[in-house]
């Protein structure tokens, strides 16, 4: 095992002549001695190499694969100084080892760091490419949807139902729990301020409106991005890395129809349902606080009924469906655009979640403004 050996200098003769520097180590150059050999060598070498470097192995009794690194060190040093490098005194086996080790060891120019302007430009191009890619992908999905309307038998119904189960019913517990807690938290945080105006019961309005119109769909979509968007990216990304997507294409099967559409339909169907579920439990969570303050269930439900409108309910459903389409599209697109290498799937998954959540919030803002303009 290579180690830094402490103690006396390694026996290395370094002599400078008209032809350059001759370096003649003695004894073993191996994993055990490599640290000491390098220390000694670096101390004895001239500060500036004026001529060729010759490494003489004739007095070396033992050389291993770590010991060969001395030749690599001197070779790179010589090439960096623009002088020649030569090995002498090595028999056939050593020569082979050294020659193999020296292949491609010329010092390389370090890659120049791109300037600020270039970095900004590259980032802008990457953003533009990403947007173009997303638009193109949505176009691909639209084309496949048109195809499926004409040939509905091409829809993979089994896969779609399986995706509904995995990304819908399996999320019921977590969505319900978060919805309930959000409702309770809103009621808890607004109770005192509302009480100052004598509007304790109107906390029910606040809970109902915010949960049904806004927070129910939002919480559901964020959970969807974390659970399903990441899963889509990881599943499809792994298929890309293992060439399963190539296999599909060579069979003439469109990966968008085969993989994306079932997931997209499944999430678009189940997410509004989950949002309703989150809203119901959110309203129930609100009652937990108001009930503790002495209001009856009848008072609470009457207030909630007055606060809710059909428009508000529809608004929540539309938002949930739009969020689902965004999360599923971004997750699947990230998977399809997965690069090569072990870290690629992880990167795709991260991108799917982050981009999914950003898209949800942006869409929520746009939809909020849209419904406000419509007076809903």
């Amino acid at each position, binding site marked *: *095992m*290579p*180690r*830094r050996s402490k103690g006396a200098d390694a026996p290395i003769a370094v002599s400078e002549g008209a032809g350059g520097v001759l370096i003649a180590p003695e004894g073993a150059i*191996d*994993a055990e001695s*490599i*640290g000491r050999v*390098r220390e000694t060598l670096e101390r004895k070498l001239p500060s500036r190499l004026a001529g060729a470097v010759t490494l003489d*192995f*004739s*007095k*070396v*009794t*033992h*050389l*291993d*694969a*770590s010991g*060969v*690194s*001395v*030749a*690599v*060190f001197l070779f*790179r040093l010589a090439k960096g100084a623009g002088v020649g490098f030569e090995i002498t*005194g*090595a*028999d*056939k*086996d*050593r020569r*082979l*080892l050294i020659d*193999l*080790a*020296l*292949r*491609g*060891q*010329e010092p*390389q120019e370090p890659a120049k760091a791109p300037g600020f302007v270039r970095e900004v430009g590259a980032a802008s191009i990457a953003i533009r490419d990403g947007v173009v890619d997303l638009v193109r992908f949505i176009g691909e999905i639209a084309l496949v949807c048109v195809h499926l309307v004409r040939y509905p038998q091409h829809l993979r119904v089994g896969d779609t139902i399986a995706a509904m189960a995995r990304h819908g019913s399996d999320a019921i517990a977590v969505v319900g729990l978060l919805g309930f807690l959000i409702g309770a938290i809103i009621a808890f945080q607004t109770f005192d301020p509302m009480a100052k105006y004598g509007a304790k019961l109107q906390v029910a309005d606040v809970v109902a409106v915010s949960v049904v119109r806004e927070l129910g769909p939002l919480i559901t979509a964020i959970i969807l991005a974390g659970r399903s968007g990441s899963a889509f990216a990881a599943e499809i990304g792994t298929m890309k890395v293992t060439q399963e997507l190539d296999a599909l294409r060579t069979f003439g099967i469109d990966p968008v129809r085969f993989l994306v559409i079932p997931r997209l339909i499944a999430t678009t169907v189940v997410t509004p349902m989950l949002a309703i579920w989150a809203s119901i439990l959110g309203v129930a969570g609100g009652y937990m606080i108001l009930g503790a303050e002495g209001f009856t269930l009848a008072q609470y439900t009457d207030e909630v009924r007055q606060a809710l409108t059909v428009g508000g309910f529809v608004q929540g459903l539309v938002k949930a469906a739009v969020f689902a389409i965004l999360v599923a599209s971004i997750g699947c697109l990230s998977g399809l655009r997965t*690069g*090569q*290498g*072990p*870290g*690629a799937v992880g990167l795709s998954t991260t991108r799917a979640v982050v981009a999914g959540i950003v898209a949800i919030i942006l869409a929520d803002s746009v939809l909020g403004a849209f419904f406000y303009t419509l007076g809903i």
Partner: protein
Amino acid sequence: MPAPSAPAPRPTARETAISLRGVSIGYDRPIIEGIDLDILKGEILFIGGGSGCGKTTLLSCLTALRKPLAGSITIDGVDIVDSDDDAIRSVRRRFGVMYQLGALFGGKTLLENVRLPLEEFTDLPDDVMDDVARAKLGLVGLGAHALKQPSEISGGMQKRAAIARALALDPPIIFLDEPSAGLDPVTSADLDAMIEALNRMLGTTFVIISHELASIFAIGQRFAMLDGARRKLVALGAPAELRDHSDDEWVRRFLNRVPTQES
């Protein structure tokens, strides 16, 4: 006048590096049973057999990643089947492993991959570690790719980088799982030459799982053949000897590359 190569730590011929006694390998049920095998110090041993005959499972047992269903495996006198974790960790420093798909760490350059064992187990200065890692990469023909990420190189190159990483600490035993698969013939021959040179000069023991007949005959000193159908080790000997004179028809067919329908 060149110095004669290495009064190296080349062992006397019959010392045993790894000893298997009555080893059965498998998962729910045995794939191969009753393996008795002594892997000798300083030899190049190929382990081969048909697909699914348990070669890679055997490698997992030899590298203490999996326990055999029965029997004992001893490496340098330590029984790795019954030892505690500390003893196994210590034995693991005595061998390097190249896995079938390379198993390089993503997000690290090739140089950093090879440096990693040096950083963990040596106190060498940074620049020396760099040069040792560069030398190991050079040995497998990747000197010019030291600063690339595994994702930037081909599968064959990843395998070679994994061999360089297995060599990082100059272990006396190196296990290679299908090293030549996916490599072009010239690179494969270079790899064989490198293995043979390391073996000859340093006495490194190589245990190689491979189907590659060209490599087996070029550098294999012994060949151990597993047969999944009969669930046993069916042959052990010099590859050419087994090819030409084995009593076992399946062994001859395998080493002569004879299709089933001609048997």
